[in-house]
């Protein structure tokens, strides 16, 4: 069996450095397998998050050779193994230890978003009638596994650290799922423009490129949300119409 070198970031609260580990590479192995092998035999205390090992839980996010990916879905056969494979934690979030970061920002930001508010049930038994084609648009957003790789790569957070003014692509996907939910009645457009900071996004599409669930974050979530903001706040005809009709919504 061939061997490969893994250059892994080891450290606590930001101080630390890379250390090299060599391990055997078997058929079909993913990066997380190599980490587990190193953890079991050479570095018992190597900190890493994982759960499903099948790309379903979004726990094992890291930067592999500089690109944000899931360790459990990155096959070693897709990486050049003649050079060391570098493994770093997501750099946008405060480091905890080794490959583990403090992702609590994402949970706090989500809690500020207005929760789901359904319209009255359509049927006497408390259920709704919804067509398959109307759920599909939102089902795309519901595929999100909260790996936060899109947050990691977005320059508004990564370089400009606007954590207090910008909720980031994951939470635009979340907001889009609520806004486009066929049953939802709440209005989140003012917040999008205000505290959620959708205006900071300049549609670089970096988030879309890293999403392991292949959600079209920019095209299907962010751009339609931006359009709602524009329609509401900047379109003079619609604004006038709203004044006369007294409607507060869309």
């Amino acid at each position, binding site marked *: 069996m061939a061997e490969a070198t893994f250059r892994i970031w080891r450290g*606590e609260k930001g101080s630390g450095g890379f250390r090299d580990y060599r391990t055997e590479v*078997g*058929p*079909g*192995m*993913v990066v997380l*397998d190599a980490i587990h092998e190193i*953890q*079991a035999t050479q570095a*018992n*205390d*190597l*900190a*890493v*998050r*994982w*759960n*499903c*090992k*099948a*790309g*379903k*839980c*979004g*726990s094992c996010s890291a930067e592999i050779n500089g690109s944000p990916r899931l360790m459990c*879905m990155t*096959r070693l056969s897709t990486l050049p193994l003649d050079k060391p494979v570098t493994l770093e934690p997501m750099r946008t979030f405060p480091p*905890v*230890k*080794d490959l*583990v970061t403090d*992702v609590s920002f994402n*949970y706090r930001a*989500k*809690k500020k978003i207005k*929760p*789901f508010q*359904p319209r009255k*049930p359509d049927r006497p*038994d*408390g*259920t*709704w*009638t*919804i*067509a*398959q084609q109307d*759920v599909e648009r*939102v*089902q795309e957003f*519901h*595929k*999100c*596994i*909260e790996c936060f790789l899109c947050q990691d790569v977005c320059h508004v957070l990564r370089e400009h650290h606007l954590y207090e003014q910008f909720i980031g692509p994951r939470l635009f996907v979340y907001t889009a799922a*609520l806004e486009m*939910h*066929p*049953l*939802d009645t709440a209005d989140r457009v003012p917040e999008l423009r205000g505290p959620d900071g959708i205006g900071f996004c300049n549609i670089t599409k970096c988030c879309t490129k890293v999403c392991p669930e292949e959600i079209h974050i920019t095209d299907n979530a962010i751009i339609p949300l931006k359009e709602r903001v524009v329609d509401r706040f900047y379109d003079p005809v619609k604004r006038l119409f709203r004044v006369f009709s007294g409607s507060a919504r869309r």
Partner: protein
Amino acid sequence: MAEYESYQHDVLVIGAGGAGLRAAIEASAAGVSVGVVSKSLLGKAHTVMAEGGIAAAMANVDDRDNWRVHFADTMRGSQYLSHPRMAQLHAQEAPARVRELEAWGALFDRTPDGRILQRNFGGHRYPRLAHVGDRTGLEMIRTLQDHGIHQGIEFYMEVTVLKLLKDGDRIAGAFGYDRERGRFRMFEAKAVVLATGGLGRAYQITSNSWEYTGDGMALAYEAGAALKDMEFVQFHPTGMIWPPSVRGILVTEAVRGEGGVLKNKDGRRFLFDDVPANYRDQTADNEEEGFRYTQGDKNAKRPPELLTRDHVARCIMREVREGRGSPHGGVFLDIAWIKNRVPGGGEHIKKKLPSMYHQFKQLADIDITEVPMEIGPTIHYAMGGVRVDPDTQMSDVPGLFAAGEVAAGLHGANRLGGNSLSDLLVFGKRAGEYAAAYAKEHNAATANKEEVEAAARHALEPFERAAGEGPYLVQRDLQQVMQNQVGIVRKQGDLQKALEALPALQARAGRVAVEGNREYNPGWHTSVDLGSLLTVSEAIMRCALERKESRGGHFREDYPAKDEEFGKVNLIVSKGADGEMHLSREPVPEMSAELKEIIKEMK
């Protein structure tokens, strides 16, 4: 003296999967203060991995379905070892629990008339599983999480509970540590709900994550609660087997529900060769009829691929053993063949099974719309667990409740697919409701401080040992024993040997040393998890030795038939006053006259 931070709640929920979240939401709605602790981050519990769907007799697809049929199916699947009252409540309440999810924002796949779509699954007579493609668990956990964070519940993420605390006989709280800093935490509570899931990590080849070390069962056992049905471990027939690094990862039963067929190396649908007598009337006579069933023909009967999991898993083992397996020691699961039979062909498959398509494409370089998958059995689910009251979910310890996979009773000798997610909702809600009521009726309890000190000392011991073996090797060796000697095919000699190997493993676990410090140290976490793994493994071994028959998930090569006497009892283990594990037999709870009538009618 150990240092720790203290927190007070009326109800403490341990676990943030479907059962824990549903319990917390219910308890909070009753107006008590609720805390939830979990080993992982919110939204990452096992529930997120569930694929196929939630079983509930809503009759949206087939109007012949109702709770009575679901009840009868569950009892038949359990080989009549389920607690009948639990099976009844589950079947009656599941539809309302699913609709509730929709009211909280879940978006299920739809029927043509705009209602929740339901799909076929093994052992369910009619299409019954509400689903979202093959990522139902994600939809469920996210819906509960996103609803739950607005209910005033306090969440403690990445906190592992080490010990349940008591005040005399009753529960008083729990003691644990946070993974990030390694600091101790004490939670005082009037009532505690265990929702910690299963124990798949006791085995080598499993669909389960690192979290599944049987903590909840071990915690309850140590606190004096009885465990039940521990011999019944479910082997899911279809896990990935190649490449080696993906071995055990689940291939959802929905593949078969959508028309996937199992074949041996000669291309034979071997499941037609062996249909158990009690399912013969419900099983298709030929391949064509089976296919029609999967495509919604109400007059067709189920293909044998949708027989119960225990049976399908054993048939696969037989094919492999007798030399008719696939190159890597499994059999073939073929969904690609339906391409020429359904509108949309390959696209239809991708749409119905998107994550399976993705999983095989990425992890195995296989396009499931073109070629068959290679699959084999993988450890999947613990039917056994904490014995609870069917209505309230309270264990033998006053104030200690359990719901979800950690609890026993609903599934008996074998769980039907889809019956777990519904179990989490139905009994999670009940546990939350009754835990809140218990908390309201009782004064605050006082935790025993000596227990806290002892638990803290014990947890830190691995740091104090200068030299010693690391915990991962002990875990590996235990997994090997369980896989080889307490696995899918069991016999007296093997089980005996496994039991004899246990003291040495226990001694090694007591001597492990960990390097590094307390901050996010997986070596340490693994060393403390070993205790739970060993406890649940011992329970499985002892019960497996005792049950000298084959039934459901428990197959004894030396007693291959069912034994009527064993069909009347559940096996119970509990910790005796002498500190040893004690085993007893308990008659299966009597059915009410109404339920007996249903069983008779649907035989």
